[in-house]
C-alpha cells in the first residue's frame, strides 16, 4: 500500500491535544517510519512548522508492541477489576457483525428506553480531539437515525475549562479564551498554565512576547512552568481567585477615577452598563416595546437602549422612570415611577466591599500586590489607543486576564469568568487587538466560523441558543443521562451539548438517583474511544463499579486500558499515523491556535500498519452497510458531516454515490477536492494524491477575523456585561420548573444564577467535603491540586516508555510535590514513600520536595495510577481522581467541578 524503498518525508498533522492541529513530517525509510520532524515548509504555521514533544512519540505509538493487535471479544462474562476479560481474537467481520447485531435491535425496537434515555451512548473524550481521529465515523452516528447519548462523561466539566466554555460562548463567542499574544504587553493569569497547555503556538507566542518585554503575572498556588517563566509568581491560596479579581474590580471602580481609566465610550455603546436596573433587579423596560431603557444625559430622560442619537449614556446615578420589569415566567412588574440605576452603578455598589485588604485576608495575596497589578493593568490597557489591522482601525488594548483550569471551572468559575471578562470590558479590551479573544464556538453554529454565529438577539445582545426554561418548553424529562436540556440552559442542544453538561451525573445517579429523578440507566450499547473514564473521571473506584453494569461495551482501543477492561468487544484503533482524514487547520481554533491562514491538512498512513487495525472511516461504512443505513451515511458525508466540508457547494459537486460503499481513500479524496474548491472559491481542486504529497492547503485568513469587535459593531450589538439579567431570570425559571417537579437536588446549583455574582466562601465548599463523608475537616489540612504535564496530556501517551523517559526531566514526574519546609515538619524527606489521603481514599506516591509550592498545597501532575494500561501501570504516581468524590456539592450550575480536594499526607512507614 505504501512505498517500501527509499526515504520519504510524509506530511501529516498532530491533533493529540486541542491546541492544534500542528503539522509535521514523518520520515519513512524503506517503508519503516523512523522519526518525526517539523514541517518547515509550512511557513504559515505560527510556530514555525514545529510540533511539540508528544508528536515525536508518534512513531513509537505506531509500533508499540503493547497495542491491541486485532479485534477481540470477551469470553469471561464476569466484569470487574480482578476479572480477566479472557480476550480472544476474532476477525473484523465477526467483530462488526457482533456490533451490528447489538445495534440493530435499538433501531428496530426503539432508540430510547423506558426511562427516556437513548439506548446507544457514545463517549469520545479527549476534549474534542477525537473528531480529528474518528475519520468518517461521526457520519455513521449522524445516520443512526435517532437520539444517542453523549452525556456519559469521561471527565468533561472537571478536566476542561468548563465555565469558560459556556460563559465564554455566551458573552463573546469564546468557547476558549486566548490573549492576543502577538500584541499583548501585560497578562494577569490566574492559574492559566499556557506554557504547558497553550500548544506550540501558545508557547511560541508567549516566548516571543517575553522577549520583547511583555509582563506576565502568574497567580497560582504552586510554581508551574508558566509561573516559572512569568515576570512574577504570586502564590495565591486555592479557590480564592474570585476574591482577588473582585478586589481588582473594586480598585478600578473605586480607587481609580473610573471615568478616566475605563473605556467609557465602549461601556456606553457596547455593553449593558447603561441599562437601567429596576427595583427587583431586572432591566427597566419600555412598557410598549419591552426594550431595556437607558438614561440619556443630554435628553435628561430614559430612552430605549437602541435609540440612535444618544450621545452620553449615564453610567452613574439614580433616576426615576416609567417602565416595566420582566420577571420569570412572563411576570411583568409595572412601575409608574421606578427608581432605577444604570447597571454600571449597581456594579460599583456591588464591588464596594471587595477591598484589597478584604481579598488579602482571604487569598494570601498582599493588598499592595493587588493594587500594584491593578495599576499596571490600567497603565498597559492604553485606553484610547488604536491600531490598523488589514486596513481597518480598531481599538488597541494590549492587556489580558487569563484563567486556568480549576479557576475557570467548578464553584467560583462563574465568578472568575465574569470578573475577568468584565475587567476586559471595563478598559475596552474585549475582542479587540491586544485583548482577550474567543477562538472558536462549539455550542453556536456554524462551528467553522464564530463570527457568523453572531446574530442579533433580544435586548441588543447576541441571539443565544439556550435551552428553554419556560413552562411550556422546558425539557422536563432528561433526553440525555447528563440532562443537559433539563438542567443547564446555557449549554444549548447541539451535538456537543450532552458532553458539556453535568457529565459526572450519570455515574453518580446510576443506582442512586435523587427522588423523582429518572435514574440514568446503563446504555444497551456503549461505544467508547480515545477515552479512559476509569482513570480520567473523578472517583475512579465508583466508575469501575458502575462499568460492571454496562451490558455491552464496544471500545475503540489503542492498548488495554482501565475502561476497555470492562468491554465486550475491542476494536483496534488505527492511530494517528495509520489512516486518512482531512481536517481544518488555521483560522481561529481552541487555545491559541489562531492563524493568518486557514485551510485543511491531511493525515495519512505513513507506512504499512504493523497490526490488524482499521481506518474508522471504513468501520463507519461497514457498520452502515450492515445496518441498512448506507444511503443515510453517504448522505451525511455528502452534507459534510465528519468531512468538515459539504461535498456539494456553490460551483462544485463531488458528492458520493449514496448507494455504494466507498473506501476511506475514495471518501477523503472527495473531501480533498471539495475543501480545496470551497476554500479557493473554485480556483483550485486538489485530490488525495496531491494532499499525500503536500499535506496542507491554505488560503489567507484576515487577522480582522480574530476579533469579534467588527462583527459586533457592524450588527449594532452589545456584550451582555456586566449585568446578567437574563441569567438571573432563567435561573429563577429553572428553579420554578424543578420545584414544580418536586426536584430539589439542584437547589445549591440554582443559587449560582446571579445578575452580579457575590463572593462566597468557595474554599469552605471543599473543606466541607470531609463532613459530608463523616470525617473531620481539620484532619485534611492540605489542598491536593493537579497540573498539566505537556509530555503526557491527551493522546494515550501513558503507554509509551519513550515519554516516561523524557518526562522524568520535568519536576513532578513521577511523584507528589510538596513544600520542603512543610514536609520537614511532617518528617518527610525527598524521595520518601508517602500516602496522600482524602475523605474517600488514599494513594501512595514518592515525595518530591520543592520550594515553589505553597506550604498548604500538594501537587500531583496529570492523572495516573493505572492498573491495566501497559507501561503506565508501572508508573508509580497517584491520581487525584481516585481521591475526589463525585459529590453534588462539588458540581456547579453548568455541571463543572474543580480538580482539587482536601487531603492529608504522611509517610508510608512510620507515624501518621
Amino acid at each position, binding site marked *: 500500500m505504501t512505498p517500501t524503498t527509499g526515504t520519504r518525508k510524509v506530511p501529516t498533522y498532530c491533533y493529540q491535544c486541542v491546541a492544534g492541529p500542528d503539522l509535521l513530517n514523518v520520515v519513512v525509510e524503506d517503508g519503516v517510519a*523512523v522519526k518525526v520532524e517539523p514541517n518547515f515548509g509550512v511557513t504559515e504555521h505560527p510556530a514555525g512548522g514545529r510540533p511539540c514533544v508528544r508528536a515525536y512519540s508518534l512513531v513509537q505509538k505506531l509500533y508499540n508492541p503493547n497495542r491491541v493487535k486485532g479485534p477481540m471479544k470477551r469470553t469471561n462474562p464476569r466484569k470487574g477489576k480482578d476479572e480477566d476479560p479472557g480476550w480472544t481474537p476474532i476477525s473484523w467481520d465477526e467483530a462488526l457483525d457482533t456490533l451490528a447485531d447489538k445495534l440493530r435491535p435499538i433501531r428496530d425496537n426503539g432508540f430510547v428506553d423506558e426511562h427516556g434515555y437513548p439506548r446507544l451512548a457514545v463517549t469520545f473524550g479527549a476534549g474534542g480531539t477525537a473528531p480529528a481521529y474518528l475519520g468518517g465515523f461521526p457520519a455513521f452516528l449522524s445516520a443512526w437515525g435517532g437520539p444517542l447519548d453523549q452525556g456519559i462523561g469521561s471527565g468533561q466539566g472537571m478536566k476542561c475549562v468548563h465555565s469558560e466554555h459556556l460563559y465564554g460562548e455566551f458573552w463573546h463567542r469564546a468557547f476558549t479564551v486566548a490573549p492576543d499574544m502577538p500584541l499583548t504587553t501585560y497578562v494577569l493569569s490566574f492559574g492559566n498554565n499556557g506554557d504547558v497547555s497553550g500548544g506550540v503556538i501558545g*508557547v511560541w507566542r508567549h516566548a516571543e512576547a517575553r522577549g520583547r518585554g511583555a509582563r506576565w503575572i502568574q497567580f497560582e498556588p504552586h510554581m508551574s512552568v508558566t509561573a516559572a517563566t512569568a515576570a512574577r509568581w504570586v502564590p495565591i491560596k486555592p479557590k480564592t481567585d474570585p476574591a482577588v479579581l473582585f478586589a481588582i474590580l473594586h480598585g478600578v471602580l473605586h480607587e481609580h477615577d473610573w471615568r478616566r481609566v475605563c473605556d467609557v465610550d465602549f461601556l456606553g455603546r457596547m455593553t449593558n452598563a447603561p441599562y437601567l436596573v429596576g427595583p427587583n433587579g431586572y432591566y427597566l423596560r419600555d412598557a410598549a416595546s419591552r426594550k431595556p431603557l437607558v438614561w440619556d444625559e443630554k435628553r435628561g430622560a430614559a430612552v430605549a437602549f437602541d435609540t440612535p442619537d444618544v450621545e452620553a449614556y449615564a453610567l452613574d446615578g439614580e433616576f426615576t422612570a416609567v417602565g416595566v420589569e420582566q420577571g420569570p415566567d412572563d411576570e411583568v412588574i409595572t412601575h409608574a415611577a421606578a427608581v432605577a440605576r444604570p447597571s454600571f452603578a449597581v456594579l460599583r455598589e456591588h464591588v464596594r466591599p471587595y477591598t484589597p485588604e478584604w481579598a488579602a485576608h482571604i487569598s494570601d495575596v498582599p493588598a499592595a500586590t493587588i493594587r500594584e497589578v491593578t495599576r499596571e493593568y490600567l497603565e498597559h490597557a492604553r485606553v484610547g489607543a488604536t491600531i490598523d489591522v488589514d486596513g481597518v482601525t480598531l481599538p488597541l488594548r494590549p492587556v489580558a486576564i487569563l484563567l486556568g483550569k480549576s479557576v475557570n471551572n467548578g464553584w467560583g468559575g462563574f465568578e472568575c469568568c465574569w470578573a475577568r471578562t468584565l475587567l476586559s470590558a471595563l478598559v475596552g479590551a474585549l475582542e479587540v487587538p491586544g485583548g482577550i479573544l474567543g477562538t472558536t464556538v462549539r455550542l453556536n453554529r456554524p462551528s467553522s466560523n464564530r463570527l457568523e454565529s453572531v446574530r442579533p438577539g433580544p435586548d441588543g445582545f447576541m441571539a443565544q441558543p439556550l435551552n428553554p426554561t419556560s413552562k411550556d418548553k422546558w425539557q422536563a424529562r432528561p433526553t440525555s443521562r447528563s440532562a443537559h436540556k433539563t438542567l443547564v440552559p446555557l449549554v444549548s442542544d447541539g451535538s456537543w451539548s450532552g458532553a458539556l453538561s453535568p457529565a459526572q451525573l450519570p455515574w453518580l445517579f446510576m443506582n442512586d438517583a435523587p427522588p423523582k429523578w429518572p435514574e440514568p440507566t446503563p446504555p444497551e450499547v456503549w461505544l467508547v474511544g480515545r477515552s479512559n473514564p476509569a482513570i480520567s473521571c473523578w472517583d475512579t473506584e465508583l466508575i469501575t463499579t458502575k462499568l460492571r453494569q454496562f451490558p455491552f461495551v464496544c471500545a475503540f482501543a489503542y492498548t488495554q486500558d482501565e475502561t476497555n477492561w470492562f468491554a465486550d468487544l475491542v476494536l483496534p484503533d488505527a492511530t494517528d499515523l495509520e489512516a486518512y482524514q482531512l481536517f481544518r487547520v488555521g483560522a481561529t481554533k481552541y487555545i491559541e491556535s489562531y492563524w493568518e491562514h486557514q485551510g485543511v491538512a491531511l493525515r495519512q498512513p505513513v507506512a504499512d500498519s504493523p497490526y490488524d487495525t482499521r481506518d474508522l472511516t471504513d468501520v463507519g461504512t461497514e457498520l452502515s452497510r450492515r445496518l441498512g443505513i448506507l444511503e443515510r451515511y453517504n448522505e451525511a458525508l455528502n452534507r459534510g458531516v465528519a468531512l468538515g466540508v459539504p461535498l456539494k457547494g456553490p460551483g462544485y459537486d463531488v458528492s458520493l454515490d449514496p448507494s455504494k460503499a466507498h473506501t476511506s481513500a475514495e471518501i477523503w479524496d472527495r473531501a480533498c477536492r471539495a475543501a480545496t474548491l470551497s476554500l479557493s472559491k473554485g480556483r483550485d481542486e486538489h485530490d488525495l494524491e496531491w494532499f499525500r504529497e503536500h499535506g496542507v492547503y491554505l488560503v489567507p485568513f484576515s487577522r480582522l477575523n480574530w476579533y469579534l469587535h467588527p462583527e459586533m459593531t457592524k450588527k449594532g450589538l452589545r456584550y451582555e456585561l456586566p449585568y446578567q439579567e437574563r441569567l438571573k431570570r432563567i435561573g429563577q425559571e429553572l428553579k420554578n420548573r424543578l420545584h414544580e417537579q418536586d426536584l430539589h437536588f439542584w437547589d445549591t446549583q440554582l443559587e449560582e444564577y446571579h445578575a452580579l455574582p457575590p463572593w462566597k466562601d468557595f474554599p469552605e465548599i471543599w473543606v466541607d467535603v470531609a463532613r459530608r463523608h463523616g470525617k473531620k475537616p481539620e484532619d485534611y489540612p492540605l489542598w491536593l491540586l493537579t497540573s498539566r504535564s505537556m509530555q503526557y496530556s491527551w493522546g494515550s501517551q501513558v503507554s509509551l516508555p519513550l515519554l516516561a523517559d523524557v518526562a522524568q526531566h520535568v519536576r513532578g514526574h513521577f511523584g507528589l510535590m510538596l513544600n520542603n519546609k512543610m514536609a520537614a515538619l511532617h518528617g518527610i524527606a525527598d524521595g520518601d514513600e508517602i500516602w496522600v489521603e482524602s475523605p474517600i481514599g488514599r494513594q501512595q506516591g514518592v515525595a518530591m520536595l520543592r520550594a*515553589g509550592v505553597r506550604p498548604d498545597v500538594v501537587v500531583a501532575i496529570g492523572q495516573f495510577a493505572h492498573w491495566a494500561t501497559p507501561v503506565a501501570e508501572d508508573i508509580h504516581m497517584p491520581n487525584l481522581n481516585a481521591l475526589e468524590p463525585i459529590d453534588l456539592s462539588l458540581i456547579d450550575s453548568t455541571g463543572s467541578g474543580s480538580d482539587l480536594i482536601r487531603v492529608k499526607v504522611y509517610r508510608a512507614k512510620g507515624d501518621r
Partner: protein
Amino acid sequence: MRWGMVVDVRKCVGCQTCTIACHEENALPPGIFWRHVVDVEVGEYPEVRRAFLPMGCQHCAEPPCVPVCPTGASQQRADGIVFVQYDMCIGCGYCAVACPYRARHMIHDQDWYFMAPTPSEKKARDPERHGVMSKCTFCKHRVDKAPAGATPGVDPEYTPVCVSSCIANAMHFGDLDDPNSNVSRLREEHQPGVLLEELDLKPSLFYITE
C-alpha cells in the same frame, strides 16, 4: 569559524521537545539523552526562581574530555565541535568523569524500549554505537551537509535538531567567530553567561537569563 549556541533561558519552558527530537534524530537508546532540559529551582518559598536549562555538551574551546582520552577517539574539530570517533573508542569512561557538565553517555548495550526492538528502532540504530562513549555532536551530520549559500542555524535542515525543533524559539546556533551571525548578535545584545564559568573551559553555549 567556531560553532556555538545561545540559549534564551527566559523563553525556555522545559518542554523537552529538543530532548526528544535529539533522541529520535540520533536514534538513542532508552535512558541516553544527549540534550535534555534541566528543571532548576533555587531560593526558598516564596522567593523562588524556577528555570529550564537545556544541557548537553558545551563543546568547550578547552575541553577536558579530549586530552584524557587514551585512544584519541575523543576529538575536537577545527570548528570547535567535540565528538567521539566511535570505532576508536574503547569505552574506558575517562572522558565522562572529566566532563563537569555531565555531557557524556556510555551506551553500554543494545537496549530497546520494549522486550524486542520495534521496526523503527531496528532501522535507525547504529550498531557501531554500543560499548562506546557518546555525546552531542552539534548534529554535525546535518551541519556538514550545508551546501554553499546555506547557513547552519538559519536553514533548519542544516541546523542541530534541538535548535530547529524548539517550540519557544529559545535556542540559536551559529558561528561565534562571525560578528554578524545570529549568535554573535545575541551575545552582543544580552551579554549571556556560561555555566561553570570558574572552570575556565570556555564553553560554546551561552545562556541568556536576564
